[in-house]
């Protein structure tokens, strides 16, 4: 899907909630650059989990209200042990509740879109059947994809930056620009009936 296509398909603005989790952003390079991009976009609500809940005491009601108020839920995080950082998992466990996100009466996220942006330390080559990580990113992100499915959400094509430590400033800047364009496209409402990539 090219950027131009998405633009032309748009029909007005969609509200985007970008939930960001990085426990030590001061030591990060890639996520620092990417989060800055998201933070500076006016159309996006930037929500920093580790900054809001350094003590892990999540305000469930406030978080659910936040989810309800947006059309697109975007998750940005560095991949740790093939999963999200601990606080984002905690956030999912506590906020995406039965009766709210799924199950009986759990239709509050129905029809929203779920988008994942993550960074990995290992290079793209590692995320391959014969690479040292043996599985593809698509496979590693299956739990989140299934989360979207169970909640009746549309699974957006993930945005992945591999080999974060291998990138120089220029490489990171380029990735940041791609990311910005992806986020812009998320703020557009897609045409009804548009085919969604799984």
């Amino acid at each position, binding site marked *: 899907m090219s950027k131009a296509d998405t633009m032309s398909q748009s029909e007005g603005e969609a509200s985007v909630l970008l939930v960001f989790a990085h*426990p030590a952003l001061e030591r990060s390079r890639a996520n620092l650059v990417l989060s800055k991009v998201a933070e500076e976009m006016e159309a996006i609500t930037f929500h920093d989990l*580790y900054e809001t809940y*350094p003590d892990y005491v999540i305000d469930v009601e406030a978080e659910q209200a936040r989810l309800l108020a947006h059309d697109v839920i975007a998750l940005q995080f560095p991949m740790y042990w093939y999963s999200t950082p601990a606080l984002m998992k905690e956030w999912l466990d506590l906020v995406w509740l039965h009766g709210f996100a799924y199950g009986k009466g759990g239709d509050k996220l129905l029809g929203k879109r779920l988008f994942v942006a993550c960074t990995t330390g290992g*290079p793209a*080559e590692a995320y391959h059947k014969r690479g040292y990580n043996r599985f593809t990113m698509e496979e590693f992100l299956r739990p989140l994809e299934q989360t979207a499915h169970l909640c009746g959400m549309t699974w957006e094509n993930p945005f992945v930056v591999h*080999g974060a430590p291998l990138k120089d400033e220029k490489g990171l800047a380029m990735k940041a620009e791609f990311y910005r364009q992806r986020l812009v496209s998320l703020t557009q409402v897609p045409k009804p009936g548009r085919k969604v990539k799984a």
Partner: protein
Amino acid sequence: MHAQSFLIQALVYLSAGVVSVVAAKRLGLGSVLGYLIAGLIIGPYALSLVGEQADVMKFAEFGVVILLFLIGLEVRPALLWSMRKTIFGLGGAQVLATAFAIAAAATLLGLDWRTALAVGLVLAMSSTAIVLQTLDEKGLRQGAIGRAAFGVLLLQDLSVIPLFALLPLLATHAPVVTGAVQAHGTGSLISSLPAWLQTLAVLAAVATVIGVGRFAVRPMFRFIAQARLREIFTASALLIVVGVAALMQMVGLSAALGAFLAGVVLAESEFRRELETDIEPFRGLLLGLFFITVGAQIDVPLILTQPLLLLGVVLGLMTLKFTVMFSLAKIGGASNRVASAVGVALAQGGEFAFVLLAFTVGAGVIDPKLASLLTAAVAMSMAFTPLTVIAYERIARWLDAHVVAPAIPDPVFEEGEPDIIIAGFGRFGQIAGRMLTANGFRSTVLDSDIEQIELLRRFGRPVHYGDATRLDLLRAAGAEKARMLIVALDDQAKTSELVERARKAFPNIIILARAFDRRHAYDLLANGADAVERETFEASLALGVTALRKLGFRAHRAQRAADFFRRHDRRTFEELRPIWGQTEAYMLASRDAQDTMNKLLAADLERMKPEGADGWETSGRDEDIREEAEREGWESGA
């Protein structure tokens, strides 16, 4: 002044002040008594190092004016308004009742009733300077005692104004016009005007002080502050005080009262603190001088010729003033403790008595012999005040320690068997207590602050009055079946005592205690507490987190820094526990604390490296990835 040069005079005053005040402080007598003794020693009746006191006295009285200005700065108009009942009720009652009581006593001793009434009115005044200075040194200025005393003193200062008008009416013989009458009775510029014009002038003066204070002083100070002229700021601050004093004298009001008013007007300005710090030293020095001059006026020959009569007058005066003040405070609803403290504090004669006595002699109300006796008596009563306050404190402490019988009956515990007994429900006990209640535990609370209890009761919390160190009360509260005792008293010694006793009496109960500091914490653990919490530790740590965040740390990093520090500190606490016991035996307490602090700081530096190798530290892994990428020929941009 004397023929001595100004420098020699200053030398005498200053050295007498420095030596005797330091000595008095060392002996625990307070600075006021030190100054008074210094004055007595250098005065005309002892060493006679200084001569005529009248000039110095006038200069020194300005210290009282500055004192009132500073007090005014602390009293916002709203506070003054809220004190109106104390000022006019308690204050008015004190002046009238004391005056009549003294007058009655004086009549019984054979004085003419008019003279007796004049004496009563003059002696009803107390010494603002001595009372406030003494209360300040004892740290009592702010509480119930300080408020009551201050309210009464304020009304006494107010009543000086009508007294100048009223006292001449009590004349028994033809007035003798003297300097004193000129200075105080007819000294004002407007005394020749008709009464309604005088009233108008007084109102105009008050309005001027308020108006200028409100609208002119702030821009002026702002301008001076911007110009950064430090000494001009001080000079203008003094100028305000002197100006107000002069204006008040012109219309016949008390300068001290005017200064107080000016202070109140400026209490809400942003320059309040600056004014305070700038003027404070003048207050200290001039008040010191004032006390010295009072000391120097104590007529030693008179004391020596009529020692018993004088002593009788002084003791009679102080007993009478104490009794009246104590009774009035009790009627006003004060506790025994507060009423007696206010009574003791206000039992002396005041500095206005000196002025008024001179004035009444001139007006032919009191004859000179009686006046000089009373002057000596007032000066001595002032000198006795610091001593009586010390005596009061001793007695209060003794009562605290020895009188067990509580004024309030033992509580009845009606809420059934509690899970937890909380001893002490102040700032500390409340938080833990509320949290435990919120989590469904039943608690019984004991506290010995009756005001606190009444407040909490109004919010429907079952708090009982009682000294939790009494085992029978704990037993009545259900300590035998309760699972836990939380000791949250704010008294170190009592906490230790209670922990030790409760451990022996109730072997199965879990005892948690609030510790004052590290030393106290070790002490409590050694005496049977199952766990302790140093009362300021968590709060201080939380402030540290806020500090780190304000300095630019991300929230999570600051949080973890505190988490690490807490763990590190608790480990150190455990490690130093055995060492503590050993040093305790042979080291002085201060040395001991310093030694511990050294060990703590060393441990902090060693263990708390700012960037410890904790989670998400990826530099090592990143290095591996880069090496591998080179070997395998991976592309960086993939």
